[in-house]
C-alpha cells in the first residue's frame, strides 16, 4: 500500500514525534508544529503516537491511494475529500485504491496532520522519521513521491474519541513562564510582552516565528554565550523584536530569552499563520503542568 503525491501543496513533510537524545550533538528534535493534533490523527486510525504522518501547511496536497487505506486528518480545518466525498475531520475514513484525497479550502488553523493506518514506513535517521529541512534530514514532498504504508499498530483498543484542539481564529493567546534570562530585560519589556499584541510576520517558518510589535528592551547586552534553546522560547536580538522558536529550531542560540510558551499551548502556537496575532499571558508553573495534564486527558476524551 502506498500514497502517491500528485500535488505536494505548499509544504508537506513527514513528521513523527521527533528525534530525542541527540540535542547534545546539535540535532534538533523537529517533529510536528502541532504535536497534539499529530497524536490525535494517529489515535483516530489506531496508530501509536510516534507513527509518522504528514504535516500539511496552509495549502494542502493531492494524494492518490495505491491500495485501500484508512486515514484521518486533524489540526487545521480543511475541506478534505476522498474521491468526491467530503470526509469528517478528527475521525477515520477509508480511501479505495485509485481514489484521490484532495485538500480544499482552509477555514481555521495553519497546519493539518494526515495519518494513515499503519504509519508511513520511511527509513529512520537517528531513530526518527521527522523531517528537518535545514539539516537535510528528509525534505518537502514533491509530485511523484510514493510513500509506503507501514504496519504499526497501537496497543489495546481505542477509548473515547479525543477532543480536537481549539483552533486559533486570526490569532491566539498563549501562556508563558519567565525564561532563564528574564532578568536581562527591563521590567517595562516584560510588561509590554504580556500586555501588547504581536503579529506573526511573513519571515516565519517551522524554525520560528519572527514577531512584530512593541520592542523589548534589554537591561544589558542582547548577546549571550551560546547555550541550549528549548522549543517555545522567545529570544530577543538587539532589535528588540522577539522570535518565538518553534519545532524545527536550532539546538543552541546566542540571544537572551525573555519567556517560554508553556508546552500545553505550543500546539495552538503551531496553528498560527503569517499575519495572525499572538498574545502572551503570564502563568505559574503549576498552571502550566495542570494544562499539560489537561491535554493528556483530552486525548482520552475527558474534558478538563
Amino acid at each position, binding site marked *: 500500500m502506498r500514497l502517491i503525491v500528485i500535488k505536494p501543496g505548499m509544504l508537506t513533510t513527514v513528521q513523527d514525534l521527533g528525534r*530525542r*537524545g*541527540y*540535542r*547534545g*550533538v*546539535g*540535532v*534538533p*528534535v523537529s517533529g510536528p508544529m502541532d504535536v497534539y493534533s499529530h497524536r490525535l490523527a494517529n489515535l483516530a486510525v489506531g496508530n501509536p503516537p510516534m507513527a509518522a504522518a504528514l504535516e500539511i501547511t496552509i495549502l494542502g496536497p493531492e494524494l492518490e491511494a495505491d491500495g485501500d487505506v484508512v486515514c484521518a486528518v486533524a489540526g487545521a480545518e480543511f475541506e478534505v475529500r476522498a474521491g468526491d466525498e467530503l470526509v469528517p475531520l478528527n475521525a477515520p475514513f477509508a480511501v479505495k485504491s485509485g481514489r484521490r484525497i484532495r485538500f480544499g479550502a482552509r477555514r481555521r488553523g495553519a497546519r493539518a496532520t494526515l495519518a494513515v493506518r499503519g504509519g508511513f514506513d520511511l527509513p529512520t*535517521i*537517528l531513530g526518527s522519521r521527522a523531517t528537518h529541512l*535545514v*539539516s*537535510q*534530514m528528509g525534505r518537502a514532498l514533491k509530485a511523484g513521491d510514493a510513500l509506503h504504508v507501514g504496519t504499526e499498530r497501537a496497543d489495546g483498543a481505542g477509548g473515547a474519541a479525543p477532543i480536537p484542539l481549539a483552533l486559533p481564529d486570526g490569532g491566539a493567546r498563549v501562556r508563558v*513562564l519567565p*525564561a*532563564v534570562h528574564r532578568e536581562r530585560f527591563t521590567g517595562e519589556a516584560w510588561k509590554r510582552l504580556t500586555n501588547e499584541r504581536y503579529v506573526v510576520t511573513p519571515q516565519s517558518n517551522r524554525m520560528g516565528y519572527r514577531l512584530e510589535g512593541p520592542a523589548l528592551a534589554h537591561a544589558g547586552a542582547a548577546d549571550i*554565550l*551560546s*547555550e*541550549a534553546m*528549548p522549543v*517555545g*522560547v522567545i529570544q530577543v536580538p538587539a532589535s528588540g523584536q522577539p522570535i518565538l522558536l518553534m519545532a524545527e529550531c*536550532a*539546538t*543552541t542560540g546566542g540571544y537572551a530569552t525573555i519567556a*517560554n*510558551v*508553556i*508546552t500545553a499551548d505550543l500546539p495552538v502556537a503551531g496553528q498560527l499563520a503569517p499575519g495572525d496575532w499572538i498574545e502572551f499571558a503570564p502563568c505559574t*508553573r503549576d498552571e*502550566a*503542568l495542570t494544562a*499539560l*495534564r489537561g491535554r*493528556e486527558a483530552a486525548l482520552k476524551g475527558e474534558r478538563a
Partner: protein
Amino acid sequence: MNTRVLPAGDSAWLVELPERIDPEVNARAIEIARAVERSALPVIDVVVGYRTVMVFVDPLADGADRAGQTLESIAASAAPTADAAGAVVDVPVCYDEPYGPDLADVAAFGSCSEGEAIAMHLAREYRVFVVGFVPGFAYMASVDPRIAAPRRSTPRVKVPAGSVAVAAGQTGIYPAPTPGGWHLIGRCPVRPYDPDRTEPFLFRAGDRVRFHRVSAEEYRASTQWGDA
C-alpha cells in the same frame, strides 16, 4: 564554582556556571552533564553550553517534580569524569584557493599576510566548548586574537558544507550548507556529521582539536562532500 539552577520553561532546567569562556568552567559543565545522564532523572536530552547545562525532562514523568532539587545536588556533588577531558581530534584543512574566500579579509584584520593568518590558525589547539546550531557543528575556541575578526556584517545565504570558518575568537566547520556569518578561511574534506559512519559525530563538547594543512590535490583526493 558558583552554580545556579533555574527552570527553563516547564520541560527543562538550566544549570548556570560563571559567565565566561573558560575551559575550566566548560569542563565543570561537562562533568555535571555526565552526572545528570547517569542519574535517575527522567531525562530526554542534556545539552552543554559554554557555561551551562540544559536538562530536558518529561515534566509528567515520575521524579520530574523534584528535578530542580535533584539537579542542585548533582551540580554540587558531580565528580570529575575521565571523558570530560575529551578526545584529541586531528582535522585536515585545505586553505588554498578557492576554499578560503575570506582569508584576505581575516589577514587584513590582523594586518598580516594570508600565510601568517593560516599559520596562526594552525598553531593552536582548540577546545570544543559547545556542539549545536546544526547536527555536528562544534564551537571551538580560542582563536589567536590577531585573527579574531568579528562576524561578517552581512551573513552569507548559503555557506558551502565543509567550510572552515572563524569569527569573534571562535572557529568551526559547517557540517551542512546553511546560512552563516563567519569568515571562511578553508575547507575540511571530512564530514563533521555523517549518518552512515559508525560514529556519526566527529566532535563532542570537551574535545581538543588540532588542524593540519592539506593541499588542494590532497583535498580533492579525500573529500567526502562529492566536490572533487
